[in-house]
């Protein structure tokens, strides 16, 4: 760095971002005390003092486990589940004589199941580990004092106190103190996308005292000590003091460069490492998102409890009978069942102590009937959900080719919740709209400029039924200059024509304001090509508009803005430099922004733009020339769904400015708590007596396919709430544009902008206002409610503003408000703050008790996303923060339709079917054991060989159920989208309600009875083969087990609707595997295979009776479900049954089916159902009859 640098103290003094210079303020006084004890010896990482402090290195590990603690920690995680604890206890007890089966046979499945889950954890952690390795081994240039040069070092070897050099577009390896940069005024730009998701550039500024150290040679002499706060998670605060040259300098966040942010627009910077590794702010911030559990999972836990109770009950019954039988072994001093040697027995079978024996037997029973609890349920569900997520991620229909972004399921455990969404709460900007602003119209000096229609206008016109003939297509010559963010067409302005307009001086001023009053940073990409880094897309639209008209903003530094302007008199383009004196920044409270500049003519100008209401307040008497007309225009613009901004300016008097500037600088450098208030007041002082120039109108374009998507979602019976900060008019119009508000829908508006309230507001008695507002809202809600009840057949749209909402959230009113809101198809909350968004979300969730989905794209939606049951982030332009807080990320709003109606529905159906089936198969199996028990005087002898049992959950029934959970489709994706009403199955949870769950359990019980009694009666007793052999214990076990495997797998085949080769392979493969297993297991030596030795080959296979029994039992066990399904599908079909049958039917009968559905549903409709549903059906009907015509 041998560049010659000019030191220019004056420049940085003028910088609007000047640092706090005052030392010994309140917070800085705390340095050295508790919480502020960190000491950094700059450039001396090897010094004794620094080493003694033992700060952590820069090595970062985000993994959950390490190689050492993986085993214990992940095991611990596994055994936090009740079911796993149970199986562990069973496995431990299985070594005792209590166990009805051998210990390895119970341990193996447990090991398989736990191992599978742990492997999954391990793989996930390994991926994190790879990321860590990548980050830890990145290179950075670190200063080496001995050689006076920089040398490449790995990030992980960085130490506190090191001096580093970071170049353009590199990430900062740790939290650094900025010493100097390649800019002469020691600033640098950083992008904090990874921290807070904001894509705009932030300016950082070093202390002037350190700015000298900008080359390797000069750094050799650099010695300083930093005392500062301890590591904490506050990204936007930093308190510290630099001890340099026997002086103290206060440090603020302005000098701190945070790890994981990126250096932009700056050649390179030098910095001192302050926080390393896990001490850095970004790592301190890394907390796990709140974990969410689905309703199905919660209900599943309850089912597990039901099964546990069944287990205990069954064991109790068993041990009761066992006690009685054991007691009977000793009758009147004689041992009855002498062959059991009751005289020489252990405590487990002692007829002299039957109570004890019965109690111990109860424990045996708990182990034996443990098959009622599906051991592999959790792991199977987890596997399925991960695979489902992969399908969601892979879906080409949810892949945005422009942005190259596929959908991304960030958590896999909410998949089925996607199928149960009752209410969607949506952000507007960036979610429904693109958030790419287009400058479309403006009003300058009371004249309208810009033609062409916005989407909202088109929608409104369509609503009025007008023919859109005048909508002339934009011809080729006009569209040649089509830029993102610019859609302004007016021959009076464009191509320098504005010069000949009557008010050309106002037009000139107007665009000068647009070209200077902003915080954009230009980036010259090539000749005639300039990109702008901006904080908000509105600003980009303004700057681009100004450029296109002829006021090209092309360079900025801390003190000046350079424009290339068209000179109206000479008609050539000249460069003009505006000296930038102050920037009074935009904030949501101020709703305006202004800059103070000195133009080349040495005039002091204050240029301002802001919300119309704010600007109009501050106009001078003579500045109101165009007020009336502009107001009219603004009104018109906002009706057309445009975002408006008023533009004004003021010429400043030199003396006035001087006095003001002094006060302002004083306020700025003070560090007292009321600094911001003071600065606001001062800004107010100067931003007055403005002269109105005009207003801009920017269109927030609707995202592609939004109206269609919203229409589908509404037809699926999902309530949609839009929470926006827009004005009511804009919000309503956007509502129409994206078909949230539809033709024939009645609007209910709840507002406080009523004459009586406004009158009271003028008086200013706050309590009176509050009371009057509350009463007014109450009245409005009650009135609306009665209206909704009266006209139950019409759809309603509720529009409420943020202020009214605060009153509607009053705890006396909230229930009736929510009641009202739930009966409306659409709710639009305008003028709501981010916090209100989260509160509403929580309220909807808690009042309805149904699943809510929040969708948003910006940092202001994070609260909402985390509060909702499901948070969906739009990975659009506004950074990644919403995505980081979300559970699912999609690139465009319209993908929500497919995510919910297709993936949501499928996942819901799959998971609920899967759980039901899991319980079915385990109950079937568990109860055959119980019935057999009853015939062994409840002694605890299992009906099957130990290893058959332990393989049941792991091998013979696991894969088909996973195939069900991953692949099953009741109807195809196309039909899911065509019949949105199908989605209501999930919302009403009819596939996982208690009757259905208990129905499956009952089916399991029935199957077990059929299997046990048909098998025993068919095969035992007389000879079961031609050679006179009788069926013994082992043959019965094999036969029954064969029947169980066949039955549960065939039930599966009956319950799924989608057979690909995978399903065929898994289902029939599982059955085939049972026979293969039997042959293999039967051929190993009899001391190991015991009762299974050659049992299939020698005993069962040659017996015709065995095969006939299998056929009989399987068909008999399937018959109940088959007949139930047949009758139910024909006479009480569910939505998916209807669609499946419709698909099969020829075209002519479809009409009848629809009509039948209609009449049925209107009969069956209860008051609790959405009234919209009928109308939807009518719509469907109309559509289908039209198609026929």
């Amino acid at each position, binding site marked *: 760095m041998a560049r010659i640098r000019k030191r220019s103290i004056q420049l940085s003094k003028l910088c609007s971002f000047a640092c706090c210079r005052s030392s010994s303020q309140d917070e800085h006084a705390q340095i050295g005390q508790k919480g502020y004890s960190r000491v950094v010896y700059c450039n001396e990482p090897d010094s004794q003092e620094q080493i003694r402090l033992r700060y952590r290195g820069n090595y970062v590990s985000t993994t959950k486990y390490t190689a050492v603690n993986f085993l214990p920690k992940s095991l611990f995680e596994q055994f936090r589940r009740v079911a796993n604890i149970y199986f562990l206890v069973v496995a431990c007890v299985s070594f005792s004589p209590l166990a009805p089966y051998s210990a390895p046979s119970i341990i193996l499945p447990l090991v398989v199941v736990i191992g599978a889950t742990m492997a999954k954890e391990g793989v996930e952690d390994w991926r994190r580990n790879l990321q860590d390795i990548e980050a830890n081994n990145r290179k950075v240039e670190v200063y080496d004092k001995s050689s006076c040069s920089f040398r490449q070092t790995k990030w992980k070897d960085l130490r506190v106190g090191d001096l580093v050099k970071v170049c353009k577009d590199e990430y900062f390896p740790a939290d650094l103190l900025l010493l100097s940069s390649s800019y002469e005024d020691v600033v640098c730009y950083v992008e904090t996308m990874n921290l807070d998701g904001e894509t705009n550039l932030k300016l950082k500024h070093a202390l002037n005292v350190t700015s000298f150290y900008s080359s390797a040679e000069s750094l050799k002499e650099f010695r300083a000590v930093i005392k500062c706060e301890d590591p904490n998670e506050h990204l936007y605060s930093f308190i510290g003091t630099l001890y340099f040259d026997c002086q103290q300098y206060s440090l603020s966040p302005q000098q701190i460069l945070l790890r994981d942010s990126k250096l932009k627009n700056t050649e390179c910077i030098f910095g001192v490492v302050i926080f390393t590794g896990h001490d850095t702010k970004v790592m301190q911030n890394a907390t796990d998102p709140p974990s969410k559990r689905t309703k199905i999972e919660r209900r599943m836990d309850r089912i597990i409890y039901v099964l546990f109770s069944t287990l205990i009950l069954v064991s109790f019954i068993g041990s009761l009978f066992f006690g009685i039988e054991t007691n009977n072994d000793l009758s009147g001093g004689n041992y009855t069942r002498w062959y059991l040697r009751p005289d020489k*027995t252990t405590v487990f079978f002692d007829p002299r102590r039957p109570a004890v024996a019965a109690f111990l037997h109860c424990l045996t029973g708990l182990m034996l009937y443990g098959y009622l609890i599906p051991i592999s349920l959790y792991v199977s569900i987890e596997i399925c959900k991960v695979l489902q997520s992969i399908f969601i991620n892979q879906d080409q229909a949810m892949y945005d080719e422009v942005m190259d972004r596929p959908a991304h399921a960030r958590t896999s455990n909410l998949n089925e919740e996607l199928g149960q969404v009752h209410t969607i709460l949506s952000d507007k900007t960036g979610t429904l709209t693109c958030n790419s602003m287009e400058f479309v119209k403006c009003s300058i000096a009371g004249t309208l400029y810009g033609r062409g229609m916005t989407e909202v206008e088109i929608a409104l016109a369509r609503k009025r039924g007008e023919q859109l003939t005048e909508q002339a297509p934009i011809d080729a010559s006009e569209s040649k200059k089509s830029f993102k963010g610019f859609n302004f067409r007016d021959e009076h302005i464009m191509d320098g024509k504005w010069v000949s307009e009557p008010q050309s001086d106002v037009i000139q001023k107007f665009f000068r304001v647009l070209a200077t009053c902003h915080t954009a940073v230009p980036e010259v990409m090539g000749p005639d090509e300039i990109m702008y880094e901006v904080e908000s897309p509105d600003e980009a639209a303004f700057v681009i508009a100004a450029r296109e008209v002829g006021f090209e903003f092309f360079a900025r530094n801390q003190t000046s803005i350079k424009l290339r302007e068209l000179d109206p008199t000479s008609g050539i383009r000249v460069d003009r430099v505006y000296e930038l004196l102050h920037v009074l920044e935009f904030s949501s409270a101020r709703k305006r922004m202004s800059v103070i500049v000195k133009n080349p003519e040495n005039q002091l100008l204050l240029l301002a733009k802001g919300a119309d209401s704010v600007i109009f307040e501050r106009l001078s008497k003579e500045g109101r020339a165009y007020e009336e007309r502009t107001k009219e225009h603004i009104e018109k613009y906002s009706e057309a769904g445009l975002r408006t901004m008023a533009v004004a300016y003021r010429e400043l008097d030199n003396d006035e400015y001087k006095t003001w500037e002094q006060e302002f600088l004083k306020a700025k450098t003070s560090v007292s708590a009321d600094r911001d208030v003071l600065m606001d007041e001062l800004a107010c002082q100067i931003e007055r007596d403005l002269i109105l120039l005009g207003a801009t109108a920017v269109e927030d374009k609707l995202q592609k396919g939004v109206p269609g998507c919203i229409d589908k979602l509404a037809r699926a019976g999902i309530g949609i709430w839009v929470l926006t900060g827009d004005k009511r008019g804009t919000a309503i119009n956007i509502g129409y544009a994206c078909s949230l508000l539809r033709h024939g829908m009645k609007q209910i508006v709840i507002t406080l902008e009523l004459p009586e309230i406004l009158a009271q507001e003028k008086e200013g008695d706050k309590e009176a206002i509050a009371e009057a507002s509350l009463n007014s809202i109450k009245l409005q809600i009650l009135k609306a409610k009665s209206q909704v009840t009266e006209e139950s057949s019409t759809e309603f749209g509720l529009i409420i503003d943020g202020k009214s909402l605060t009153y509607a959230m009053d705890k006396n009113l909230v229930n009736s408000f929510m009641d009202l809101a739930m009966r409306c198809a659409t709710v639009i909350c305008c003028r709501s703050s981010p916090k209100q968004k989260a509160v509403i979300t929580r309220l909807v969730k808690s009042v309805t008790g149904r699943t809510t989905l929040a969708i948003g794209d910006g940092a202001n939606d994070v609260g909402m996303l985390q509060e909702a049951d499901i948070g969906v982030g739009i990975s659009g332009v506004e950074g990644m923060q919403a995505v980081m807080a979300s559970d699912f990320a999609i690139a465009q709003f319209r993908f929500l339709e497919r995510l919910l109606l297709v993936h949501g529905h499928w996942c819901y159906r799959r998971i609920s079917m899967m759980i039901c089936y899991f319980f079915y198969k385990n109950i079937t199996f568990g109860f055959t054991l119980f019935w057999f028990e009853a015939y*062994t005087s409840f002694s605890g002898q299992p009906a099957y060989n130990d290893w058959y049992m332990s393989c049941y959950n792991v091998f013979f029934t696991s894969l088909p159920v996973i195939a069900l959970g991953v692949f099953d489709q009741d109807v195809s994706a196309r039909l899911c989208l065509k019949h949105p009403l199908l989605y209501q199955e999930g919302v009403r949870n009819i596939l996982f309600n208690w009757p259905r769950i208990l129905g499956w359990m009952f089916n399991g019980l029935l199957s077990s009875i059929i299997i046990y009694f048909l098998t025993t009666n068919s095969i035992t007793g007389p000879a079961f083969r031609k050679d006179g052999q009788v069926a013994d214990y082992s043959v019965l076990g094999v036969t029954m087990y064969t029947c169980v495997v066949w039955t549960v797998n065939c039930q599966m085949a009956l319950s799924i609707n989608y057979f690909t080769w995978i399903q065929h392979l898994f289902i029939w493969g599982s059955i085939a595997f049972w026979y293969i297993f039997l042959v293999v297991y039967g051929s190993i030596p009899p001391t190991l295979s015991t009762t299974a030795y050659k049992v299939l080959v020698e005993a069962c296979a040659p017996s015709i009776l065995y095969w006939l029994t299998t056929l009989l039992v399987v*068909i008999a066990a399937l018959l109940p479900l088959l007949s139930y399904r047949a009758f139910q599908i024909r006479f009480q079909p569910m939505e998916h049954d209807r669609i499946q049958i419709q698909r099969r039917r020829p075209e002519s009968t479809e009409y009848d089916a629809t009509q039948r559905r209609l009449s049925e549903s209107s009969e069956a409709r209860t008051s609790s159902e959405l009234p919209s549903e009928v109308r939807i059906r009518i719509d469907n009907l109309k559509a289908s009859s039209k198609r026929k015509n």
Partner: protein
Amino acid sequence: MTDTDRGTQRDRDSAFYLFTQQNLPACKPVLTPEWVFMTFLFIGFIFIPVGLVTLRASHSVVEIVERYDIGCVPEPFRINKVSYIQDDSIPKNCSFSFKVPKYMKAPIYIYYQLDNYYQNHRRYVKSRSDKQLLHGQNQHGISSCQPVEVNNDRPIIPCGLIAWSLFNDTFTFIRNRAELKVNRKNIAWKSDREHKFGKNVYPFNFQNGTLIGGGKLNPRIPLSDQEDLIVWMRTSALPSFRKLYGRIEKDLDVDDVVVVHLMNNYNTYSFGGKKKLVLSTTSWLGGKNDFLGLAYVFIGSSSVTIAVVFTLLHLLSQRH
């Protein structure tokens, strides 16, 4: 994926693409009324004939069942049968006769049937040592044989409750004053004889204890040839069971009178068990068992009924 391999037509047709898009060619069965009708009717048409054939096979089997446990106790002891059976001084021989109701074609299988005898009791089933049965005395691991594993500190071969309670009633059959030869070979499973019971393992220290359970074994015959033991050791599934005793390899004619001489040694009296003697021929299906055939016919006819009821309801509701 890069842009180049996304979306080309060839990729879109590839099986992997269809798989990831969940669009694999699939069969989607739907229970339409026609299918329901056909399915149930089909089940009926398969099951009823199978049931009838099975019933026919079952009826072709001739089976004679004679209960003898009470008849073999002399009148004076009928009140206290246990004392009779436990008293060694009382001779246990007994005889009865029966008439053959139908022509019985050889081979005629002889079974003894025990009722209310829990050979499937956990304590009983576990009380054996497969290792010892195969390898003999050298082997350890007879702890599973409790409570009959050692006597006088020496291991019992074969150990365990099952062997100890070996059934020991014996039967001889006389027709027309000539003894009917009973073949008692090959009554056990071949795999049991060859792989579960050792050829060099001889009974040792068996039934030498104070309490003698069931039958004794000839210590000079290896376990693999002790077929009664092998049959007995193959425990039954349910508390009522038959076990093969032997085969008569001569036909029996109608009205042949067969006299049975038996030694009524085995104690079923103390737990109220029944003892029966069964002579039975077999069909291609096995013994006499009407249940399977009846069940087939029942399931078949129910499914035909369901098919008819369903179709009627379907047509009725369509008319309305």
